[in-house]
Structures are given as structure tokens and as C-alpha cells.
């Protein structure tokens, strides 16, 4: 392998790991605190995921670019200031351009700031790696987070109100499982998704160990 493809490869690896192998929600079970509460419909969870992706992307970019300038003692404080700035920015932009979504998400947009993923990635990855890699990592993690959250939101909306993106799917005879759009549904959906994820990981391990080395 020569150098350029090597770098390309590494970018791809950093990007892909967030989608599945180190998916922030399924594997690290991180950053669900403020996000699950607004995962009762597909559109809300998608908006929440994208808002988080935005903040993650830009704070990783900035943290990585400034990693040599920021002294270690005030590292965390500076990171928090950077993240909080971007979150406030998202909050203002959503309120200005998509008031309906802003009303649905409410205070939970501001709560992105305490989403463990963002500070976690800034601290664990962006503060130690060059800009390009950090951005790839942030994009992968953010997308992985968005997809997982969107999955939760879609499942809850389909089962709980019989629709997806407010488009009815089943006709009138469908009796919605109201509990799915209520808080318990959030716990159940994520619990079962984790279960399926665990099961798939286990099967993969078994087939891998079954193969002759």
C-alpha cells in the first residue's frame, strides 16, 4: 500500500466505525439522555440527530484545529464553551427557520450540550488527531447516532401511531400501540434494538470462531 491510499483508507475507517462497529448508541450506549425523550416520531428524532451531528461536526473541527493552542489545564472548559456556542447557534437557527420543529424539541435542543458523545469525542479523538481524521470521525459518529436515533423514532411512530413522517401506513383498522409513543416505548424500543444488536454481534463472533484459523 502506498501513502495516499493509506490515508484515504484511514479516513474511511474512522468514518465507518461510528456507523456500526463503534456505534455511539448501540455499542457505547452513550448520549441517549437528552435524545430519547424526543424520539417519539420519525421527524423529531431525525431533527434531533441532525442537530447533534451539526454540533458534533463543528466542535470536532474546531477542537482538532485548536488542539495545539489550548493549554491542557483549561482544555475541558474551552471545549465546553465551544460546544455550548454551537448548540446555542443551532437553537437560534431552528427557532428562526423551523419554528414547528423547535417547538416540538423545546429544551431538548439545549440539552445537546450535555450529550456525552460530543464532549466524549472531542476529548477522546479530536483533541489528539489531525483535523481531517477528526472530521471523518465526527461525521461517522454523528451519522451513526442519527441513524440509530432515527431507527428508534421510526419504530415508535410506526407502532405507536401507525404512521411514518405523519403519513398513515395501515388504514383505519390499525389500533396503535399508544404506549410506544409514550416514555416507556422509548425504553422498550431501545432495549429491543440493543438486544437485536447484541444477538447479531454474538452470531458474528460464533461464525468467526467456528471458522478454522
Amino acid at each position: 500500500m502506498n501513502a495516499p491510499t493509506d490515508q484515504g483508507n484511514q479516513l474511511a475507517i474512522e468514518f465507518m466505525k461510528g456507523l456500526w462497529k463503534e456505534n455511539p448508541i448501540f455499542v457505547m450506549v452513550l448520549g441517549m439522555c437528552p435524545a430519547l425523550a424526543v424520539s417519539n416520531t420519525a421527524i423529531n428524532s431525525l431533527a434531533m440527530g441532525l442537530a447533534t451531528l451539526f454540533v458534533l461536526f463543528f466542535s470536532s473541527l474546531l477542537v482538532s484545529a485548536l488542539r495545539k493552542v489550548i493549554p491542557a489545564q483549561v482544555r475541558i472548559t474551552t471545549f465546553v464553551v465551544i460546544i455550548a456556542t454551537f448548540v446555542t447557534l443551532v437553537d437560534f437557527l431552528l427557532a428562526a427557520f423551523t419554528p414547528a420543529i423547535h417547538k416540538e424539541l423545546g429544551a431538548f435542543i439545549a440539552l445537546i450540550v450535555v450529550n456525552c458523545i460530543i464532549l466524549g469525542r472531542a476529548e477522546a479523538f479530536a483533541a489528539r488527531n489531525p483535523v481531517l481524521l477528526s472530521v471523518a470521525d465526527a461525521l461517522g459518529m454523528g451519522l451513526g447516532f442519527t441513524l440509530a436515533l432515527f431507527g428508534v423514532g421510526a419504530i415508535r411512530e410506526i407502532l405507536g401511531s401507525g404512521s411514518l413522517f405523519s403519513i398513515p401506513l395501515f388504514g383505519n383498522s390499525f389500533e396503535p400501540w399508544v404506549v410506544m409513543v409514550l416514555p416507556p416505548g422509548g425504553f422498550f424500543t431501545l432495549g429491543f434494538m440493543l438486544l437485536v444488536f447484541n444477538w447479531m454481534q454474538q452470531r458474528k463472533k460464533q461464525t468467526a470462531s467456528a471458522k478454522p484459523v
Partner: protein
Amino acid sequence: MDNLMWIFISALLVNNFILAYFLGICPFLGVTHKLETAFRLGLANVFVMLITALCAWLLNTYVLIYAPYLRLISFIIVIASTVQFVEMAIKKLSPELFRALGIYLPLITTNCAILGLALFATNKGYGLAESLVYALGAGGGVTLALVLLAGIREETRILDIPDVVKGTAFTLIVAGILSMAFMGFAGMFSGN
């Protein structure tokens, strides 16, 4: 008085921070293996929430009317530093108390539930008394949820659960059932 009572009950049971708002799940899933630990963590939560409510109210009433765009940043920084100061003060004044709660304080400061409390209380326009009662209710609710889950976990430790379900998946499903039970509290103090 009626209103204060409702704020307390609502935050404690009906709109429980953990079971209805999913706030503070990280410690909920991570730390709640032992009743004793869960209870202490809950108490530390109540403590930090009371400080938070006070800070948020002060900021919101005296500072943020002039600079609303600093809301988030000032909440985070002021709450984090106040908790640190109080932590130092406790260490000096009452080593007993510090040993009981101390190790949890840094863990909680960056918790979603704490910032959530500050945001909700100011969004709802609560005054000082209301904020403090709200903090007490929310903290009590967190303690209740933590203790309940820890109890269930202690009881189920020796159960023969399939490997795939073990761990977080199991905890989440138990939390879902708890959350469903707590739905029964809805409707208190309303209607008539």
C-alpha cells in the same frame, strides 16, 4: 400552596426526570447496581439540583434579561463552578458528608438532569420558591427511580437470563416497565 404541591408531585412522579424525560440515564444505567450507592447518588442529585435551581433563578432574574444569548453557556459554567465551590466547602466543613456524597458530585455536575432542571425551571418561568420545590421534586424523583432500579437489579442478579439480554438491554426493558408503572400517577391534582 396547591401549586407548589403540584409542582413537587409532578416532578417527583408524573413527569419523573428519568422515567418520563430520559434525563440522567447515564448514571441510571451505569451506577445503579447497589441500593446503597443508588441512594447516595440520588441524594447527591437532590443536593446539586437545589444549588442548580438557585443559580438558574439568580442568573435568569438578574443577568439573562440583559443577555439572553448567554443562557446555555452561563448555566453550564456557573453551575459547574458553584458545585465545585460547594464541594470544597463541604470537604472543609463536614468530611463525613463529603465521604458520603463527595465522589458523586463531579459525576453529576455534567449530567443532563442538572442542566435539564435549570432549563425547564426557567422555561416555565418559576419563581424562587417554585424553582426550589421543583428541584426537590425532581431530585426526589431521580432518587426514587435510581433506588427502585437498583433494588430490582439486586434481586435479579442471580436470575438465569439469556446472554444477549444481559446488561443494558435488560436494564432498559426493566426501566420501560417502571416507566409504565409511573404512568399510573398521571392525572393527579387535575380535573376537578
